[in-house]
């Protein structure tokens, strides 16, 4: 990448960052909440993009990780009385362990079995979460109250929505940056190689099973981290989070935004979460029908998603010029 292109990129990043930092002060509370939500859901969809867009494994059960992370956070705060950082750490650990265990079980399977396994696991987790009421609170869930946050020598109050926004922005931004860096690293590129052509990757000497497991664990942990953000935003979590429709949304947002681009999930989540929140209540009744229809139309007509299609178009133009 030339110096000019690098410069352009940094400028774009900078503008984006500046906008995000300023945003909570200029937006009304409703829109501010939506923006905070967008960051969280974008991170969640990023988890899907890692395992599918970058590794080629279709995990249709991302809600499992989100739910595990969310409950990891809430249960740690509620029972162990840790602070926000402890909660996030718990979310990461729980989803990491869970995704490694599940990954060990299912990454060995071929694509069709793999998908069905992820679906079955997520549906069963949902049923378990709803049924084990003493543990999870069922659909009423568990409420937590985090009042302050120790940040170095200060104690930041968590009452303010703006504080919450910055915390979530910080977490999402850091995680996203790390994921971007990861896929630029040799390990990340090896994982993408597995997606491109697993046989050839094996012939080069890559341990594809281990690579798939690593990616699966990363994907699950990212989604679980996003799950840990949910109770920060909403002060509670509940078993409905495990519902399979959430898994479908991760797929939808990534596909709409552009699979494999890592930015795509945020774009897709941005557009669709905003649309969903914007719809008036009567439209809520047919919203799942619209989502279903949109999924079908997009996957048939524009499978690369918004960002993917733009990238392809740009590449075409660049190739034609040369």
């Amino acid at each position, binding site marked *: 990448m030339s110096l000019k292109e690098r410069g352009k990129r940094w400028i774009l990043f900078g503008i984006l960052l500046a906008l995000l930092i300023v945003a909570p002060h200029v937006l009304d509370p409703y829109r501010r909440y939506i923006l905070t939500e967008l960051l969280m859901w974008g991170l969640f969809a990023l988890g899907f993009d890692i395992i599918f867009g970058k590794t080629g494994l*279709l995990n249709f059960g991302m809600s499992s990780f989100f739910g595990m992370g969310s409950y990891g956070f809430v249960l740690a705060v509620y029972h162990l009385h840790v602070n926000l950082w402890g909660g996030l750490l718990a979310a990461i650990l729980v989803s990491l362990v869970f995704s490694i265990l599940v990954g060990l079980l299912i990454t060995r399977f071929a694509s069709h079995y793999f998908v069905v*396994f992820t*679906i079955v696991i997520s549906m*069963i987790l949902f049923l*378990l979460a709803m049924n084990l009421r003493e543990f999870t609170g069922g659909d009423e869930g568990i409420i937590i109250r985090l009042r302050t946050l120790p940040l170095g020598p200060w104690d930041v109050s968590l009452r303010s929505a703006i504080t919450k926004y910055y915390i979530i922005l910080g977490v999402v931004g850091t995680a996203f940056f790390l994921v971007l860096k990861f896929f630029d690293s040799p390990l990340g590129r090896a994982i993408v190689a597995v997606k491109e052509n697993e046989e050839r990757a094996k012939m080069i000497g890559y341990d594809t099973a281990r690579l798939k497991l690593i990616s699966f664990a990363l994907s699950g942990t990212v989604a679980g981290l996003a799950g840990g953000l949910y109770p920060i935003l909403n002060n509670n979590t509940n078993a409905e989070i495990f519902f399979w*429709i959430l898994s*479908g949304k991760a797929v939808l947002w990534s596909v709409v935004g552009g699979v494999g681009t890592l930015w795509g999930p945020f774009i897709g989540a941005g557009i669709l979460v905003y649309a969903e929140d914007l719809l008036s209540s009567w439209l809520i*009744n*047919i919203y799942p029908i619209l989502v279903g229809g949109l999924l079908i139309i997009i996957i048939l007509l524009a499978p690369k998603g918004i960002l993917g299609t733009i990238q392809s178009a740009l590449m075409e133009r660049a190739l034609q010029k040369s």
Partner: protein
Amino acid sequence: MFDLILSQMINGFVWGWILALIAIGLTLIFGQLEIVNVAHGALYTIGAVGAYYCSTYLGHWGWAVPLSPLFLALLGLIIYLTTIRFSLGKEVIVTVIITYGLLFILEQGTLLIYGGVPRMIPNPIPYSIPFIGGRYPVYRIFCAAFSAAVIVALMVFLKKTRYGLWIRATRQDYETALNMGIPVQRVYAFVFCLGSALAGLGGVLAAPISSVTFNMGNNIIIDAFIVVIMAGFGSIIGTVVASLIIAMIIGVSAAFVNPVLAKVIGMAVMAAVLFVRPEGLFGEV
């Protein structure tokens, strides 16, 4: 205690035949079109809802037995023509996403039309026969027998008729079938309709046993997937056997543990089978 296990086993056995209908529909669609039909449960639900409407408005549940599957076959045809056929030959994600989208549409549509309230259908055969100390409902015996008869008819159809031959030929070797003049597109559409109709029939039979809710399909789809994976795609008899085994295991487990944990046990059994034999018990590699 022994009575409990026995009655659970019998219930599981009966249920296994109904589950087999649904699982066979799923495995036919997958075997033929390589489509993981995530919306299969919704088709089952629509069949059950149809049974409710027949029972309430046409007077008797019995009308649903021909009408629901017919309706589902028609619905399946519409679905096939508008979405499925464009996905043939594309990668897994395309077909999974399409059927996932269909699931959203079908389930929400059912919710809007039928409503969110679970409703019961009166037992169509309200008799019971004396059985080991208690009485066993005739209706359940009928379900098992009827399902078995349908499955046998299906196997005869596949083995002995020309269309059945076309179906098997297309599955074995698409290219050659095409070259031999078999109307492959029509075969695909037919199989999808057939699978949908079977799911609907399963719903009709199940409707009087449990209550009819708009999302009852979500429960059954887990079991159906477990069965189909465990049996391996391809063998009808294998699917039936796996259905019975899984249904009985889940049924007996449910007597001792939380019904959801029973499903987890079912899933564990499936995973264990796959470890030993990755193509499934009866799968064709």
